[in-house]
């Protein structure tokens, strides 16, 4: 070991408020670097499941004539599927990308202490994690969108067009934040040893009953289910994307979509930050 030099490289003149912002920004930089490094994981995780669903519903089913929407309606079905697929990918990515590392950081590795020693309040660490999860969710949406447009049976191309850019951006951002907030909530509630079970028990119904493969209006014959699905966050993201990408498909009113996505983000995020504080401030 050579001499342990302690000579200051810079002067310590900034205020605590400046220090908070820099710490927050540094954590975002850290998360972006990790996302970049693990981009292949993000791509695979985002693409595989929706790709298989799109492949089966928009390619296999129409080709074997098994789909209820086979024949002249098949194209319309692919059109329904695209916003649903993008929405479900975004929400699941948001949930998992925050929840999975958090479960480890809070328990086995106590890695969270590394962040807690930074000069910013603990709640800001939770907010940053939600923000980073939302970034991953948006990236996943960007990755899966073109793929879901391309994979379909010959002649059954979905008819997708961005009719309302501000609405699309608003839905995507609030939806991504909602997913990440739910991930934060799960990450602070769940017992780390049970998380694989949760993926099967919790996330599958979220997708299957989230108006991903059908618009919400189509549930009219099953009235009770139509009401129950309103408690599924996935519904609002899928319907919101329909409102901005395929407005001709019947969808939930825009005000309902946006207020539920934004309100849900605030409610889930607020509760998650509270639970996070309870877990980390011993």
């Amino acid at each position: 070991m050579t001499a342990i030099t302690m000579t200051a490289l810079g002067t310590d003149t900034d205020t605590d408020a400046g220090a908070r912002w820099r710490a927050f920004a540094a954590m975002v930089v850290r998360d972006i670097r990790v996302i970049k490094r693990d981009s292949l994981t993000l791509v695979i995780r985002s693409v595989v499941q929706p790709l298989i669903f799109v492949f089966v519903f928009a390619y296999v089913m129409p080709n074997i004539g098994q789909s209820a929407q086979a024949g002249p309606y098949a194209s319309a079905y692919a059109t329904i599927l695209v916003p649903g697929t993008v929405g479900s990918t975004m929400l699941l990515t948001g949930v998992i990308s925050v929840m999975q590392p958090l479960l480890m950081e809070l328990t086995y590795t106590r890695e969270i202490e590394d962040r807690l020693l930074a000069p910013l309040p603990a709640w800001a660490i939770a907010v940053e994690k939600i923000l980073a999860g939302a970034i991953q969710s948006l990236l996943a949406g960007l990755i899966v969108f073109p793929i879901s447009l391309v994979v379909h049976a010959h002649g059954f191309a979905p008819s997708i067009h961005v009719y309302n850019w501000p609405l699309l951006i608003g839905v995507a951002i609030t939806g991504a934040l909602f997913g990440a907030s739910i991930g934060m909530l799960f990450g602070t509630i769940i017992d780390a040893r049970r998380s694989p079970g949760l993926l099967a028990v919790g996330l599958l119904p979220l997708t299957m009953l989230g108006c991903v493969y059908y618009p919400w209006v189509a549930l009219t014959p099953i009235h009770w289910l139509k009401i129950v699905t309103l408690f599924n966050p996935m519904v609002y993201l899928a319907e919101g994307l329909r409102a901005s990408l395929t407005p001709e498909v019947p969808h939930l009113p825009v005000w309902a979509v946006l207020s539920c996505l934004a309100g849900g983000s605030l409610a889930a995020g607020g509760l998650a930050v509270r639970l996070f504080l309870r877990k980390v401030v011993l």
Partner: protein
Amino acid sequence: MAGKEHQDSDAGEAGIPAISVRGLTKVYQTARGTVAALRGIDLEVPGGEFFGLLGPNGAGKSTTIGVLTTLVKSTAGQVKVWGRDVSTDPIGVRRRIGVTTQGPNFDRYLTVAENLEFRGRYCGMPGRVARARAVQLLEEFDLADRRNAHVHQLSGGQAKRLMIARALVQRPSVLFLDEPTAGIDPQTRLHLWDVLRKLHADGLTILLTTHYLQEAEDLCERIAVIDHGQVLACGTLSELTADLGAETITTVSYDGEPPPRLRDLAARDGIARVELTDRQAHIFARDAAGVLGAVVDVSTQAAVAIRDVSTLRPSLESVFLALTGRDYRE
């Protein structure tokens, strides 16, 4: 070497201790009720001191260091680092301290060098400065060839060195080390001791917790002996041993319980105290002469066989024994 430079302006003010703890209490709420981890701790560490918190596992050392480093909330009491209260100004405290916790809580998604770089960035350094600081510390801590390794690939000793390097990234004025040498081989421990001695020689205030008696004796200028959440004694090694009023400690081992009548020896001239534990008697005396004869007499009368006898100078082990009536188990 510019040791004083890692103490900021308020560090040099006369009269402000680096660490001040008054009446620190910590009560945990658990499913089975409340557990008092700390029951009124008082400590004061002046700037530049190498201070040790010594106690067996579960004594409350980690909880104390947790409160001092803002990771644990106190139930009552006042805790200040360079005059900044940990409960009202935790960010001010964090900006002046370096911490190593017991486990290796590295960022698992980052490399060795990045773990240092991002600690610097979290502490407000621009990326370029943080990277330069990381390179410098990797050199100083003999980790340069592991810079691109993942943290889980490090050996135990390397991981401990990286933890200390990470704690030094922002040039703290107080360094907190929670069991820095627990669970590593003796040779690596000696190496880490050299590192810590050097840091202290540079003027850094260090508070270290340890359950190794030897570590506290060899490194620390002052030591607080802590057990069951209370400070039992605090002072330099010679102050602590002087309080025993004994020059020698004779330890007599038996196959079973030592004869209770040995306690009567405490009344004799030159014998300061007698402590009986499971299978041993410890006689604290100003002079070992005459102690052995008396012990043999009492043991023979009680028809108890003596297995072994040793006479030693007072140490932290005897201080702990005298304070708690228990043998110190590391």
